[in-house]
């Protein structure tokens, strides 16, 4: 043997996983929801998704160059931020606003904090909230929506189902419609008003299943999140069925599925321990319901997740596993 062999520290085997592969899997998991968005909103969905993805990738590449980071855009994380931000936008939003949101998400919320792995907040959600604060009207303008019979109070509305409920309860003190099997099915397949990526629970669940199988996410956060929302809304509903919609509606309407499956599970900004993930998910669920029931906005998913992002380091610390062999010294 003429050449020396490679000497490196053990282990000499690797699972073959990589950040890029995980990100690619998340993108694959987003495909059904992208298809559903395109089906529901047509050109607007394509316009917003491409604008956000391009703007995210471009600003990621440029800012990494400026900041002298040796990593490029090949880890694909900027693509995901782009898709998820677009998913959180109303279909009529002007393209330039989507671009502003994307640049903010990547440059301010991610690269200024140190780039991939260092951002405390989910960049897509931070981008959305920034847009919501800067352009409140555009961010809450929904296209007209022909509501099929069971959901209808009037045949055409420009609100989201959650918004409809909130306004109705505030003005009349009554629910605007009853929620039954037929309405559930509509929401499930995506026949509702809303941000482009949140309308079809079915497509989002399909993506979630894929990510579970590919181990991009574990069940803990989505289950704790959705479970808490179910429990909370069930208590309200059983207590006061005239003023509260049942858990089924809460699960299927608004950005909950998108949030619970794709946003709250963002690895960088959620806890690393399994117990921490359960706490995180439950916290998201609780905050979401608080906003939906008593907050100023009809929807609370973004705020809930961002707030929980902020306490993720604390949750990690509080749920540090008991080291194998610690404490349980031989019974004295």
């Amino acid at each position, binding site marked *: *043997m003429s050449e*020396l*062999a*490679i*000497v*490196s*520290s*053990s*282990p*000499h*085997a*690797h*699972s073959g*996983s*990589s*950040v890029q*592969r*995980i990100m690619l899997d998340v993108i694959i998991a987003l495909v059904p929801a992208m298809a559903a968005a395109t089906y529901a909103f047509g050109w607007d969905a394509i316009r917003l998704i491409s604008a956000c993805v391009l703007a995210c990738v471009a600003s990621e590449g440029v800012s990494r160059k400026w900041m002298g980071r040796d*990593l490029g855009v090949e*880890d694909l994380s900027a693509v995901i931020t782009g898709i998820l931000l677009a998913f959180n936008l109303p279909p009529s939003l002007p393209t330039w606003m989507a671009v502003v949101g994307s640049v903010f998400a990547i440059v301010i919320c991610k690269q200024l904090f*140190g*780039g*991939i*792995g*260092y951002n405390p907040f989910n960049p897509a959600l931070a981008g959305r909230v920034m847009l919501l604060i800067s352009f409140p009207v555009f961010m809450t303008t929904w296209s007209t929506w022909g509501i099929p019979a069971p959901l209808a109070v009037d045949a055409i509305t420009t609100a989201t189902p959650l918004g409809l409920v909130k306004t109705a309860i505030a003005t009349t003190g009554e629910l605007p419609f009853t929620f039954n099997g037929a309405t559930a099915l509509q929401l499930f397949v995506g026949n509702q008003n809303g941000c482009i990526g949140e309308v079809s629970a079915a497509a989002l669940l399909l993506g979630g299943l894929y990510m579970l199988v590919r181990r991009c996410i*574990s069940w803990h956060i989505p289950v704790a999140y959705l479970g808490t929302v179910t429990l909370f809304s069930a208590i309200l509903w059983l207590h006061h069925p005239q003023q509260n919609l049942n858990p089924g509606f809460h699960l299927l309407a608004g950005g909950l599925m998108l949030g619970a499956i794709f946003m709250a599970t963002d*690895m*960088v*900004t*959620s*806890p*690393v*321990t*399994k117990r921490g*993930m359960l706490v995180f998910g439950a916290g998201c669920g609780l905050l979401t319901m608080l906003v939906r029931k008593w907050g100023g906005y009809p929807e609370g998913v973004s705020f809930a997740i961002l707030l929980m992002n902020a306490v993720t380091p604390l949750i*990690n610390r509080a749920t*540090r*596993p*008991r*080291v*194998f*062999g*610690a404490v*349980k*010294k*031989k019974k004295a």
Partner: protein
Amino acid sequence: MGASTANFRAPGGIHPAYHKDLAAEQPIAEMPLPAMLVVSMSQHLGKPAEPTVKKGDTVLRGQVIGEAAGFISAAVHAPTSGTVKLVAAVATAAGPRATAITIVPDGEDTWVEGITPCPGWQTLDKKAIAEKIAAAGITGMGGAGFPTHVKVSPPPEAEIDTLILNGAECEPYLTADYRLMIEHAARIWEGALIIAKALEATTIRVAIEDNKPQAIAAMQDAIPAEAKDAQVVVLKTEYPQGAEKQQIFAITGREVPCGGLPLNVGIVVENVGTTLAVWEAVVNGLPLTERVTTVTGGPIATPGNVKARLGTSYADLVEFCGGTSGTISKIISGGPMMGFAQPDLACGTTKTTSGLLLLGPDAVQAYESMPCISCGRCVGVCPMKLMPNELSQFLEAEDYETAEAYNVMDCIECGCCAFECPAHRPLVQHMRRGKAQVMLIRRKQAS
């Protein structure tokens, strides 16, 4: 009594590709004497042995050539008869240099005088058993190489009730213990009875992973009639089921305290190869002069399980296995998870050389390390329930105090975290360096 399954599930663990099929069905082959043996004085944990021969001396097989230097040390014996050609420091497989004695065999393989078999070992008391084990220079042959006579002479206050024979062999590629269990089940059991007698332990458990049904059957069939409470326990195939603390937990549910030893929970664990060596030492009176090493990996022409004299160079082992084909990217002493990478085949085998693994370019990849993406995988797979993600960050920042507070010293360097990490962070490297630094700081504070 049939084989039982483990009652408890140790934390963490991974499922690497095992590649055991390469050598598993190859019966143990005895290698002829090579032209030269380079016998290290540092074959075990603890102080290296002191050479007792010098250049030009003639030695006989089984003659002491290195004396144990203190209690936690072990004697080294000449693996064959011949002439001492050199006494000098050479690099060991783990890296640091240590004195080694080079012997040129005379081809006669003459045993030293005074070998005394003792088939009626039942009459020996525990002290006599421990002495025979110490005289034979036996050390743990599975991993770290802790001197066995120390393990079998626990302090009187430690009440040992259970002896666990570790036949898990959870490292990928390695099959030496597997072959030993299939080919020498009865001897291993008798060795276990001897050790149990020394420990006054009443319970014996043999731990084998469920991917080795033949070994399970062989050990099951060979349970001796005189053993009172002996059982084969089948473990789920998972790395690192062979790690001492995890194995103890899986079988008994007892948790070895941090920084403690198995004897703190009344248990001693011995590798099956070590147990066979004990049988040889007590029943046949033979010191440890050879061991079975799995020589395997893609580039090896005919992988196998080779019984070779201690000090056989890796190059000779490879040649005995038909040489190599293709490029050799990595040479590993031991298994892929915890073994030591070697620059070349110069090293000689020791009592702990469980495997010699050659990897071709297809099995070796260079990775660029990325920032941690907090995926939590390392946390989930750590069998010690550490948080390698944050530990590695403390260590990167040279914050050894915090790392120590968060139990870096409990890391067993199993490699599960680094195996899983999608960001390809050199987590184990950080842990190793961190442990060394903490030891240094502790020593400085002590003095």
